């Protein structure tokens, strides 16, 4: 049998091109306190319905309805085959509104949210624990994961059930991503220290169900104590023969799925394909812990560990926050802002999302609330022309030419972007961070990507419009020709028939002909006005 890309995985560490060594600022918040504290109940929770990639979900509750903690509020939409995920009530209480509200999104636009007023009792809905996960099969597991609304908690929030679907028997290696390569964020490290058992058990569940041979827990080099905690937990579960902890050197953006695979296996995931094509499944450690909770205890994903940190926060720490909690409540819990606060970010400093205000809710993707001060974010130089220094090229983990891309996008030459592989850009921000001319490169790339997508969509729409126009023209021509033919036939018949008998026969023949024409036309016209026409 040919060698599989995963055969030597983890044996040697490889390099990925580019990357940055950053000051990681994790000591600010990491494991302070351990275990992390739970946030008290807020006065209101606002749960966005579509927190994940894909179709908006279908709301299954109504205004005024009393719900219990863990009750499903919306289900994945049935429209189309795009992925969606369940969302659940973070506590018991009354649904006070289902309306469009601001959500953490770069556009600042509103999106459908379910607003929940807690009754303070925090009563659980009836949970369905499983006694022995070994009895579960693939489909049951996926179904439970879906019902728990689990999405990738590393930040990409791709619905986990979709990721698991169709992977059975194809994967032989599970990589648990504990590499929090972005500065400041420490929620995964905190989780690995306070609940390593959950992670190992979750991994064992996936191993059992998907017949995975090998599990690699990748952690960053400086996370030293983690190592011990995880090892101890592995021996408690007697999983030493299949689970291995590997420390990878600290280099941003090593925590990216594709970069991590490259580091561990030396292989690249081919463009347009998923890691499954290499026989690898990558899951964030927090996601796996959530899978464990969902499978064994039946607990849906209604809370997550959030790092609240940065020089703009008085008491940086990790907290357990329910999905839908206003960010301001987290900040208050951590002692409030310091005087120099200048920017609030959801996520890390390199890929995080700048927030317009702190009334936005925590969503499943919120791994970090980062408050940066003037000193952190003030640039020392305005934007200057590119001097082609090549720093961006040497740090790009995707092997792109950021400086060329930038000039092409500035010139709005969007057609050239494809040959420059803009789609391979992961927006990690490395190029931006090393640019001596302070060019907002990632901003340009996001703009270029957006335009590229919009143009592709426009092209597709115009192609459909052209096709429909052409079909219509053909149809009209055909009808015209038929009408003409009919007219001539009738004329001829009238001229040729003198007796009454003849005219009757002619009328019958005409009716017959019309019927035939109609019958021939019918399916045609139907399909042409139908909506589901494909191009």
């Amino acid at each position: 049998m040919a060698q599989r890309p995963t055969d030597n995985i983890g044996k040697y560490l490889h390099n990925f091109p580019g990357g940055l060594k950053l000051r990681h600022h994790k000591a600010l918040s990491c494991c302070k306190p351990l275990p992390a504290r739970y946030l008290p109940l807020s006065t209101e929770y606002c749960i966005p319905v579509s927190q994940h990639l894909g179709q908006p979900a279908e709301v299954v509750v109504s205004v005024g309805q009393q719900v219990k903690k863990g009750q499903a509020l919306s289900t994945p939409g049935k429209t189309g085959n795009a992925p969606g995920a369940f969302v659940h009530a973070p506590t018991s209480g009354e649904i006070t509104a289902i309306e469009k509200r601001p959500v953490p999104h770069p556009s600042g636009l509103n999106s459908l949210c379910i607003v929940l007023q807690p009754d303070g009792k925090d009563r659980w809905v009836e949970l369905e624990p499983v006694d022995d996960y070994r009895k579960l099969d693939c489909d049951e597991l996926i179904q439970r994961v879906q019902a728990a609304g689990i999405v990738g908690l590393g930040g990409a929030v791709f619905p986990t059930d979709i990721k698991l679907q169709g992977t059975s028997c194809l994967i032989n290696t599970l990589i648990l991503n504990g590499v929090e390569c972005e500065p400041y964020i420490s929620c995964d490290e905190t989780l690995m220290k306070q609940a390593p058992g959950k992670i190992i058990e979750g991994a064992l569940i996936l191993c059992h169900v998907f017949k995975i041979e090998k599990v690699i827990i990748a952690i960053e080099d400086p996370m030293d104590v983690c190592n011990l905690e995880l090892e101890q937990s592995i021996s408690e579960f007697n999983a030493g023969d299949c689970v291995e902890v590997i420390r990878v050197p600290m280099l941003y953006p090593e925590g990216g799925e594709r970069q991590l695979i490259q580091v561990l296996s030396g292989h690249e995931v081919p463009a347009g394909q998923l890691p499954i094509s290499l026989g690898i499944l990558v899951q964030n450690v927090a996601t796996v812990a959530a899978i464990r909770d969902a499978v064994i205890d039946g607990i849906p994903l209604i809370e997550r560990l959030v790092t609240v940190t940065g020089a703009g926060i008085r008491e940086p720490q990790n907290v357990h926050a329910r999905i839908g909690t206003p960010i301001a409540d987290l900040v208050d819990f951590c002692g409030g802002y310091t005087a120099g606060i200048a920017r609030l970010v959801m996520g890390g400093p390199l890929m995080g999302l700048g927030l317009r205000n702190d009334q936005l809710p925590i969503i499943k993707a919120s791994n970090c609330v980062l408050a940066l001060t003037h000193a952190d974010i003030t640039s020392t130089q305005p934007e200057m022309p590119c001097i082609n220094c090549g720093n961006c090229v040497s740090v790009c983990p995707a092997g792109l030419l950021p400086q060329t891309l930038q000039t092409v996008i500035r010139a709005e030459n969007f057609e050239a972007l494809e040959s420059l592989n803009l789609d391979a850009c992961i927006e990690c921000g490395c190029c931006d961070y090393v640019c001596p001319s302070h060019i907002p490169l990632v901003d340009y790339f996001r703009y270029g990507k957006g335009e590229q997508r919009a143009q592709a969509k426009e092209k597709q729409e115009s192609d459909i419009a052209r096709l429909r126009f052409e079909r219509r023209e053909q149809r009209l021509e055909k009808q015209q020709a038929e009408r003409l033919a009919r007219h001539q036939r009738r004329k001829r018949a009238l001229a040729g028939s003198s007796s009454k008998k003849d005219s009757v026969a002619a009328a019958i023949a005409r009716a017959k002909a019309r019927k035939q024409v109609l019958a021939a036309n019918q399916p045609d016209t139907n399909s042409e006005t139908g909506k589901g026409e494909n191009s």
Partner: protein
Amino acid sequence: MNFSRGFNNMGSPHLPPENTVGKIMLQVLLALLPGIAAMTWFFGAGILIQIALSVLFAVSLEWAMLKLHGKPVRLFLSDYSAVITAILFALCIPPLAPWWISLIGMIAAIVVAKHLYGGLGQNVFNPAMVAYVVVLIAFPLELTRWLPPRGLAEAELLPGLLQSLQTIFSGHLPVNLSWDAITQATPLDLLKDGVEQNRMISEIRRAPVFGNYGGRGWEWIANFYALGGIWLIWRRVISWHIPVAIIASVIILTLPAWLYDPSSNPIPLEHIFSGALVLGAFFIATDPVTGCASRRGKLIFGLGVALLTLTIRLWGGYPDGVAFAVLLMNMFAPLIDRYTRPRAYGKPR
């Protein structure tokens, strides 16, 4: 308790870059200092006067051009790019060259090569080398008046600071000196003439301007340039690719000829440690704007510079060819960049 705060939301990343164009150029300036000191030691204070003159002209012209273009003057003056251009040019011309050589050179560099092409970041050709080539072709006489390095008997005659000033501004030497008495052919001149006259290398090298492995004085100046250059590489201001490619290519290309016939081919070290090769390798060919950005591109760029320099030295009309080689490779840089694009992650080549 629940007060709402608004923030400005810009796109990520939220940390501004630490590096600036000014910082890069300032480090290049610092790295040039040992070389400048060595040059002054060997060739006298004329070097410093030339640097001062060129910098003065360059900054004034830069200021005028920025004003004309309506660009922010302070910002672009504080990037020090004009200063670097001026110093690199001043290091290439003879120490007692008349003042208008700098002026004409800087007009060619700052006005023509830089701002007519669109200013910082837009120029196709290395401004310092454009300036040098313009004056070299236009004023060959003034540009060949190199002085004897310290340590040679003739060097005792060299004018001091005041006399140098006087010479540079008046164009005439002090009464007791003549150009013939103090002008000295550079090692590369001698080598070229000697080889053309079919003399043995060992015989040519007996001339006093030759040092241990390069030209007398020149070899030490080159060492100090290399010192600054290595510091730049260590600081990651420049990458190692271009200097290494140039020096390695020169060695690889000249070694076989020397091994084959040492009597008519100079030792590779002679090529490296005479003339402007080390300065070119570390400070001129590494100009980012006019060079290549990708690693492979830089290696090819360096190889090209080495190849062209040797071609001009051996078969061309000028004793040294670094300036022409750099300018010719500048033309190819975009093409090289185009064909050395790195492979994107997960994409086939």
